């Protein structure tokens, strides 16, 4: 929490400021992707940057994800510091070969001779009635792959600060921006700078239950925690921020105190990130638990278009409240 002066800013503008700062600080940095230039970015993140930095550094690409992502990887190998924007994680599947087979492997396959300092940004998540091909949360898939670092800024401060940290990382970093967060407004400290991308953070302290989440689900988890607090149940809400590597220490430390865990993940339950976290808790914190681990995930369906079905498909605060209540030793008073 900020003590000094702050200013109101949206997540979108914070992201843009981060890109602008990177372009200003390091001449090797450039932004490349679909509609990032003349159009101003599919989510208006890069609006105005073309006029400021010119078409060499704000490069519109054709709709050819595999090659422009691969070109970002090649440019990183060649000494540039590319920020590649893929419109949504759904389209990044067209570039999976380059991300998984090339970016993630070259360092190891080359015996440590080459690093790939590329940053790939993409939107993720449901909530805007965009239907199944624009609304999935597949970051957990990519978090499966060694050689990649996966981060997901949930707050204004992280949106502003994670990019610079990511650009300092000599290895490929994928930044996931939840599309419902772009309009989020908040107070950013005037002196906000790079943020840690190694550790999870506790966004709300509480001693009764640990809620583990990330991305847009942070806000639904915080809303659920507020509801529960009115009933005297105090949730500790952990924002993972980095999905690979997972900061399990922050989680273990919290669980040792609360002894109860709910994992909230907009990804699907089967084979997802929530399964990974639950398994690690079972492996290493089994005797710290007083109740089975609860999971609140998206329904096992492609995300539907109608509002009521989309809402039903993704975790909502009410479902989180129910899941947490079920963990408690006795039914909470009504």
């Amino acid at each position: 929490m900020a003590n000094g002066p702050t200013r109101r800013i949206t997540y979108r503008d914070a992201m843009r400021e981060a890109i602008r700062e990177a372009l200003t600080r390091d001449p090797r940095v450039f932004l490349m992707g679909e509609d990032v230039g003349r159009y101003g970015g599919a989510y208006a993140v890069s609006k105005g940057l073309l006029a400021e930095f010119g078409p060499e550094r704000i490069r519109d690409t054709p709709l050819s994800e595999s090659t422009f992502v691969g070109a970002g990887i090649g440019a990183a190998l060649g000494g540039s510091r590319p920020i590649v924007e893929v419109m949504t994680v759904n389209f990044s599947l067209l570039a999976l070969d380059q991300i998984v087979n090339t970016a993630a492997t070259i360092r190891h396959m080359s015996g440590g001779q080459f690093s790939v300092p590329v940053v790939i940004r993409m939107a993720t998540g449901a909530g805007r009635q965009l239907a199944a091909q624009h609304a999935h949360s597949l970051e957990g898939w990519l978090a499966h792959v060694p050689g990649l670092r996966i981060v997901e800024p949930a707050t204004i401060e992280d949106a502003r600060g994670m990019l610079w940290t990511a650009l300092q990382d000599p290895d490929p970093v994928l930044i996931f921006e939840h599309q419902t967060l772009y309009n989020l407004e908040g107070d950013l400290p005037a002196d906000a700078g790079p943020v840690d991308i190694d550790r999870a953070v506790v966004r709300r302290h509480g001693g009764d239950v640990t809620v583990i989440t990330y991305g847009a689900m942070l806000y639904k988890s915080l809303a659920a925690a507020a509801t529960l607090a009115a009933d005297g149940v105090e949730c500790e809400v952990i924002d993972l921020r980095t999905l690979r590597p997972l900061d399990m220490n922050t989680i273990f430390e919290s669980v040792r105190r609360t002894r109860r865990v709910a994992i909230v993940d907009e990804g699907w339950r089967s084979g997802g990130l929530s399964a990974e976290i639950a398994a690690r808790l079972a492996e290493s914190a089994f005797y710290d638990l007083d109740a089975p681990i609860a999971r609140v995930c998206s329904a096992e369906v492609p995300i539907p278009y109608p509002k009521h079905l989309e809402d039903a498909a993704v975790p909502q605060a009410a479902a989180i409240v129910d899941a947490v209540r079920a963990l408690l030793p006795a039914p909470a008073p009504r």
Partner: protein
Amino acid sequence: MSTPPLERTHGQRLLREMIRIRRFEEACAEHYSAGHIRGFLHLYIGEEAVAVGVMQGLTPADAIVATYREHGHALARGIGADPLMAEMFGKQEGCSRGRGGSMHVFDAATRFYGGNAIVGGGLPLAVGLALSDQLLGRRRVTACFFGDGAVAEGEFHESMNLAALWKLPVLFVCENNLYAMGTRIERALSQTDLPAKARTYGMPTASADGMDVTAVEDAARSAAEQVRAGNGPFFLECRTYRFRAHSMFDAELYRDKAEVEEWKTRDPIALLKARLEQAGLLDARELTAIEDEVRGEIARAVAFADAGTWEPVEHLTQDVYTPAAQEANRG
């Protein structure tokens, strides 16, 4: 195309380079059968003129992106036979520390960016290396080798488009050996005139006889010059043929032995040897000296690889991330 004039020293050097590749790979086949080399092994035998010819047009500052059939490119580029053979054996003295094996040869010193086992996967990488050169104002060429099989991949078309659109300094070298693994080009491609495909992206093209090293050299030199001059990418097709199977696991049931035999009459090594001899630029003594020298080099490389050491298992998780980041990235 007229045959460029030959010069003694240069002609013999081209011959030696091709013979090195041939003997190196014959040794690989032998040690594969003996179990010293495992995994997939894709031999380049028959195609040596392409790698050797193309490299003549490049400088040490240029970059190479190759495929899984890249031993020839690696040797012609200047990666030593010792570290290359050690890589085949999986020893830590290998050029990729034994981590990659036959299909993933890397070498920072010679700007050799693999060794990519995904067909067409190297093309976007080459586009990016060239983009970086363009952005940072360096007059370098990235040479990207790929086969006719890669032409069917989407990445081929995406990469042609982007390289031409942005006028990037990429020399695309298509090694058209008529077979995408076991499928002949007519069975895989609706348009078998490969330069025609590149021309639709607005880039200049040329076709060279890939069995004639001097023809390849000539075409590659002029193509690389055009690329280096800032005219954007160039597509060079080298029509060649592999004398061996696709990989050591391939029973080669898809092509006639007669076809293979016919192409063998155009063996690039035999052709150059005959030309040099006829022109009085190579005598029996010189040829023997070359063969002996290469035999010695390959024997030493095998001994080097054989004496090489296994990377300690404790190193298993090293270089997944860069050391500074490694500690935090075990997850």
